[in-house]
């Protein structure tokens, strides 16, 4: 058991799974000699050699397309998009093949692979290095989309993703890469893909979030609890697709109020689906409208103006209080 940050935890998952399963390989831009621009894959080249830790040319579609080929040949590629902002160049391969090969062949061929990509804002980076667009992947049938929120679940979910029979988009909140540490057990640990996690039980309001937004959500929850003694149930979505709406709906049926915190732009975002699921499964228990606290429908500003465009704890506190006070 060691205190690791998310970078170290993901590195540990890769190393352990590659130790265990000789068909697992890692590929992407700068993942080998450089150890990844965020140092996620550091040390893997030295340990596993250049056949299993592969620096590729600069071509996102080529990376995913060749990974699909590898998966069809029985390997388990874990490929990296250097930033999610460049991943749209592989959308054709993802939509046409990664998500469909199983259905196309009625289960005869699958493409078990993982696409790791750092996403999200808050690191004062150039344009295209700050977006959160998880629904573009989550909307596609056949896609699995996993978004860890901390070192421990990142490690456990990445191992699960590598073992999963389906293509998994593994979106890493880069803002959380080195933001904090958690105890991460040395021995292997996995978490189920396709399940939300109730990270705190409560009775007055359900607070739902994922990825980097879990931090301001938790902070805000603590503040509101302290300030007014409210009891919040907090849910970490963890798997965006397929979505475990039952866990969320069950909670809202109990609390009657819900706030969702999302980094992405509001319209057609993930919180809209969650709201719609609550409509389906818990409408008659709602005592207030579900509140979506989200990014705005604007082109993500450059970092000079970024701060006000990402939901922070103060906005979440306000949103929770408004929802609690709603009559």
């Amino acid at each position: 058991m060691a205190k690791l940050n998310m970078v170290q935890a993901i590195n540990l998952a890769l190393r352990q799974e590659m130790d265990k399963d000789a068909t697992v390989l890692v590929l992407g831009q700068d993942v080998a000699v450089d150890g990844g621009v965020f140092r996620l894959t550091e040390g893997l080249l030295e340990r596993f050699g250049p056949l299993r830790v592969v620096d590729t040319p600069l071509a996102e579609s080529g990376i995913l397309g060749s990974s699909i080929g590898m998966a069809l040949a029985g390997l388990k590629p874990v490929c990296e998009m250097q930033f999610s902002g460049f991943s749209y160049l592989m959308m054709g391969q993802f939509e046409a093949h990664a998500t469909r090969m199983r259905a196309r062949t009625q289960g005869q061929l699958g493409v078990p692979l993982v696409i790791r990509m750092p996403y999200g804002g808050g690191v004062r980076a150039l344009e295209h290095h700050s977006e959160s667009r998880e629904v573009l992947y989550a909307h596609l049938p056949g896609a699995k989309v996993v978004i860890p929120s901390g070192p421990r679940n990142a490690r456990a979910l990445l191992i699960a993703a590598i073992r999963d029979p389906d293509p998994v988009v593994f979106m890493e909140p880069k803002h959380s890469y080195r933001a904090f540490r958690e105890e991460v057990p040395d021995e292997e640990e996995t978490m189920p893909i396709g399940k939300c996690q109730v990270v705190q039980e409560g009775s007055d309001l359900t607070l739902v979030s994922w990825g980097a937004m879990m931090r301001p959500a938790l902070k805000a929850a603590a503040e509101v609890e302290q300030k007014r003694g409210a009891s919040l149930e907090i849910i970490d979505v963890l798997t965006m697709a397929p979505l475990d709406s039952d866990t969320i709906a069950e909670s809202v049926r109990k609390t009657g109020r819900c706030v969702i915190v999302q980094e992405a732009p509001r319209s057609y975002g993930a919180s809209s689906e969650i709201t719609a699921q609550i409509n389906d499964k818990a409408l008659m228990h709602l005592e207030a409208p579900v509140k979506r606290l989200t990014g705005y429908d604007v082109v993500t500003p450059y970092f000079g103006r970024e701060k006000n465009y990402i939901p922070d704890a103060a906005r979440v506190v306000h949103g929770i209080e408004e929802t609690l006070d709603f009559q």
Partner: protein
Amino acid sequence: MPKKPIAKFSVPYLQILDEHGKVDAKLEPDLGQERAVEMYRWMRLARELDERMLKLQRQGRLGTFPPCTGQEAVSVPTAMLMRPGDWFVGAFRELGGRLVRGEPLTATLDYYNGWEEGNVLPDKDLRILPTSVVIGCQIEHAAGLAYASRYKGTDEVAVAFIGDGGTSEGGFHEGLNFAAVWQAPMVTICQNNQWAISIPRAEQTHSETLAQKGIAYGMPVLQIDGNDPLAVWVAVEEAIGRARTGGGPTFIEAVTYRLLMHTTADDPKKYRTPEDEKCAWDKEPLLRTRKWLTGKGWWDDAAEEALLAEVKARVEAAVKEFEAPKDRAQDEPFRHVYGTRHAVIDEQHRDFLANIAREAEHG
């Protein structure tokens, strides 16, 4: 301005059996009677199936499909040269090669009649990838398949096809570049059939040949007469051999012609003349192959007649099997979204079944 040349390239061309059936004896490969005849038999079977499918389509018994007539000499010899462990990565005009490789005739019929069953192989180890309708993607897949051979230390080769139009896609570029950087065992064959729907080869790209596109990746390139099965045989044998023994990928342009419409939904009269087509028919591959076999004393009219009867019967049997009533569960797609079970799919599956039941009830 005087500049010194630092790199030189050329595109070689290969033709062995010309359109009149004349063979260049110095270059003629030694297939032997049995394989030579087998090659022709596959080409004839593919042609027959293609023609039959056209009729079925016109009768409303089959969906839209892209005929392969005239392009049999590219994929048939190629598939014959492949070993069981190799990967056949088609575009969508390799009917002959698919049959050689062991795909049942009914698979093609099912596929073009809107059934995923057409992608389910009798044995997954046949190593035939389903059609990539999205053009270009398959080249990237093949690069990955070829990389996997290196990874596993086997000598399996990935053989990929693409059309002249397909060479314009980014996926073609990225896939070939990956294969070359990896020196992966991959052979890419461009079936330059002169057309991408209505776009003629000359408007697809400004390069003198398509073969030279491989120069961009530092790989051996070759242009061949794609209606000449012997040129295909020799070129592909060399390329597969090189790939299998660690020599890396090759890019081959096979010059052929799409004799029929793009798909059954297309009308070539909009963009080309009957004269163009007539010229191309004069060069089609089956006739010259038959002449070559006949010249060798391996074939005669009686053999031809027998073969025609045989392929007709085979196709007929396949059509019968294809059209025989089958139980094709409507809810099949729910079973193959994921390899694991999830509530959201199960929930919708129940909803789907309820809708069907209700509509059955209320008519």
